Structure formats: structure tokens, C-alpha cells
């Protein structure tokens, strides 16, 4: 937990605290925060701002029987289930999204031994797991928007630096990078993009960058 060298940006943390991020990014932030106490403390700071905003709200009028109805709701509700911390490589929010750990992922081959699994996609953003065999390059790609990569297993290098478990790399549209998985261990990353990657869409276009390697 302490060797994370590449941290998440304040913008993403505040967006997450405010509930203003696309769902795909929520997953990456929640997963990263699970791995980083630094990010957790910073997130809590941004959430305190939300608490201050709530404290300063003018009071809205509530229904006369509001409290009674809430007490009825309480009586009818099941107790909150005890949250289960993860014992695999996927922290709880990712494990819950996938429905298990690494072995529960429904991978699709994208060639050269690399695999991906799209976890969620909507009009704003998408998030996927990417599996790159040790020593191999990830598809070279550029993006139209922001791409946030979180390493879950293994490590990779690109033109910028080395990224290991828990590290975050934020790439904007100016960065054309070619991440290469480190020798010795396969690399699994969680990747959110807020616009379609250029290699996205048709299978040949996904496979193409791999074939060029």
C-alpha cells in the first residue's frame, strides 16, 4: 500500500467526492482509493467540503409525518450487510463489478496473448480490464479524451515512467504512449476512457496495433 508512486489527481478525487464523474471513472477512483491511504485521506478532505455544503444549506420544508415514515422505513429495512474486504488482487469495488477476482473475468482475446474485458460502457465513458502478457507491449493508442489507467497486477513501463500495482497514469489526448508489461509477471490494468479510444470499435482495429508490434 505504501509503494504507490503515481497518485490520482485532485480533479478526479473532487469529481468523485461530488458525484460528478461518469460511472466508468467512479470505478477506477473507488478501486484506487481502496489501494491508497493517501488517496483516501485526500478524498475524505474533499468529502468534508460536501459536509460543509450540507451544513450551510437553507432548510427545505419536510412533510409533517416525515420522521414517522422514516421510522417505518427503518423498521422495514434489512440491516446493512457487513462489507467484505477483498482477499484477491481486485479491491472490493472492482470485485463486486466483476463478480469475483481475476479468475472470474470474462476475457476476450485481442491478439498476441493480450485480453480485455469491457466492464461498463455508456455515452460518457467506458471502463475495461486489460491483460498484457509479461514482456509484451500494450496496443499503441491515442485518445480523444482522458484515459486513466490503474495497475492491479504486475507492472508496465512507457515513455513516461514505470507503473506498478496501485499506480495511476492519467493520459490526455496529447499522449501517444506504448506501455510495455514488465518481464516476469503478466500485467492487469483497469482502464477508463472518457471518449472512445482510436483503436476501439471493430475488431480488426483493436487487433491492428498488436499486429504492428
Amino acid at each position, binding site marked *: 500500500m505504501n509503494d504507490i508512486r503515481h497518485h490520482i489527481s*485532485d*480533479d478526479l478525487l*473532487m*469529481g468523485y*467526492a*461530488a*458525484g*460528478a*464523474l461518469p*460511472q466508468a471513472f*467512479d*470505478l477506477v477512483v*473507488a*478501486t484506487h*482509493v*481502496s489501494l491508497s491511504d493517501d488517496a*483516501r485521506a485526500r*478524498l*475524505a*478532505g*474533499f*468529502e*468534508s*467540503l*460536501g*459536509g*460543509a*455544503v*450540507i*451544513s*450551510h*444549506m*437553507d*432548510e*427545505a*420544508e*419536510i*412533510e409533517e409525518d*416525515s*420522521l414517522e*415514515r*422514516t*421510522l417505518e*422505513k*427503518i423498521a422495514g*429495512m434489512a*440491516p*446493512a450487510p457487513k*462489507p467484505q*474486504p*477483498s482477499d484477491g488482487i481486485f*479491491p*472490493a*469495488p*472492482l470485485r*463486486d*463489478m466483476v463478480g469475483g477476482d481475476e479468475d472470474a473475468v470474462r476475457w476476450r482475446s485481442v491478439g498476441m496473448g493480450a485480453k480485455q474485458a469491457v466492464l461498463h460502457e455508456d455515452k460518457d465513458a467506458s471502463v475495461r480490464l486489460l491483460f498484457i502478457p509479461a514482456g509484451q507491449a500494450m496496443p499503441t493508442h491515442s485518445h480523444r479524451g482522458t484515459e486513466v489507467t490503474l495497475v492491479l497486477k504486475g507492472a508496465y513501463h512507457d515513455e513516461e515512467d514505470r507503473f506498478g500495482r496501485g499506480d495511476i497514469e492519467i493520459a490526455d489526448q496529447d499522449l501517444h504512449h506504448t506501455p510495455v508489461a514488465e518481464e516476469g509477471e503478466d500485467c492487469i490494468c483497469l482502464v477508463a476512457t472518457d471518449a472512445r479510444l482510436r483503436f476501439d470499435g471493430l475488431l480488426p482495429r483493436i487487433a491492428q496495433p498488436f499486429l504492428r508490434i
Partner: protein
Amino acid sequence: MLLSNDHADQMADAIPDALRAGVDTRQPLTRVDTVTAVDKTEAQWVTRVRAIAENQDQKAFAEVFRHFAPRVKAFLIKSGADESLAEECMQDVMATLWHKAHMYDPARASVATWIFTIARNRKIDLLRRYARPEPEELDWGPQAEPDQADVIALQEDSSRLADAIKKLPEKQRSLIERAYFGDLTHSEIAAETGLPLGTIKSRIRLALDRLRHAMS
């Protein structure tokens, strides 16, 4: 560029005021008068939530409800819920508070902050229709009662933060509020004000830095 420099100047002008505001609360005399009074309130909310967790104390719950329910509802209306959805959602939030009271950690959040996170999550459930992924809970274990000094310090910080946000220049405060109502992304804020995105981002960042500084 002229535009952004202009705004940067305005921000720079605004800093000393808020800083002074932050520093004032830490002057020994003022501190006794104001901060302690506010902290007492924060501490009372902590005590009441604990009473809900440990004794299913309905009276304590009613007090928390009276104070926070109208504010939570107002927050939800500001976030885009209509009156009836806001009422419904607010009741859900307060009922969740009851059931999760045992998970509240007063060393990591004020009661207001904790309630904000519940309200935000429920709002996303209802308005955006997905279960928001939440970070893994930290399991402190059954023995790990939060350190009293940590609790007091955190609750004091929260009071000071709330004070500092109140004393921000109107423009900056409203920017933060709008961000937390959650209906504006950073780029939407820029689109609405016609300001360059970078200026908005640094404005928010500056406001936050200042608040942090006021708290340090």
C-alpha cells in the same frame, strides 16, 4: 490570457480575506468563544450517532433528523430532484443513517460529512440509476475505538472548514456548492461561465488550498 490574468488577480485579492478569516478563529480568545461552541455541536452529533448505533436511541435519532433532514432535502432539491423525490430520497438517507450508524467513524468525518456521502450515493442511485462503486471499507477491527484526541481534532477541523467556506467570496463559494450539488462537471462549469477550463480548475484548487491552509 488577459481574462485569466484578471481572474487570477481577483483570486489573489480574495486570498488574504479568507486566510484572515481562517486565522482569526485560531486566535486564543476567539477560539474559546467560537470554535469551542461549534465543536460542542459537532461533538453532540457524534454522541447522538453513537447512541443510535449502540442503543437504537430513537430520541437521539429524532434530534439528528430534525437538524439534518431539512438540509439533506434542500441539498437533493438543489441537485435536481423534484419535491417528492427529494422527500423520498431524504427519508432513505436518514433510514440508512440509522442502519449504518455503527460504521460511522468520527475520527474520519464529521456527522455532516458522513451524511453528505450517504445523500450523494443515494442521489446517484435514484437520479443516475446505478449503484455507485465505493472504496473498500477499512476494517479497524473490534478493538479499534477511534482515539478521542483524533476525534476532537477532526471535528474541530470540520467546524473550521465550515466556517472558512462561509467566509469565502460569494463567487468561489457558489462554485464549490454547485460542484457538490453534482449537476455540473468541470467542463460544464466552464461552458456556463464562458471562462477557460484551466482558470476554473485552478480557481477551485486555489479555494481548496486556501481552505486546507486555513485548517493547517
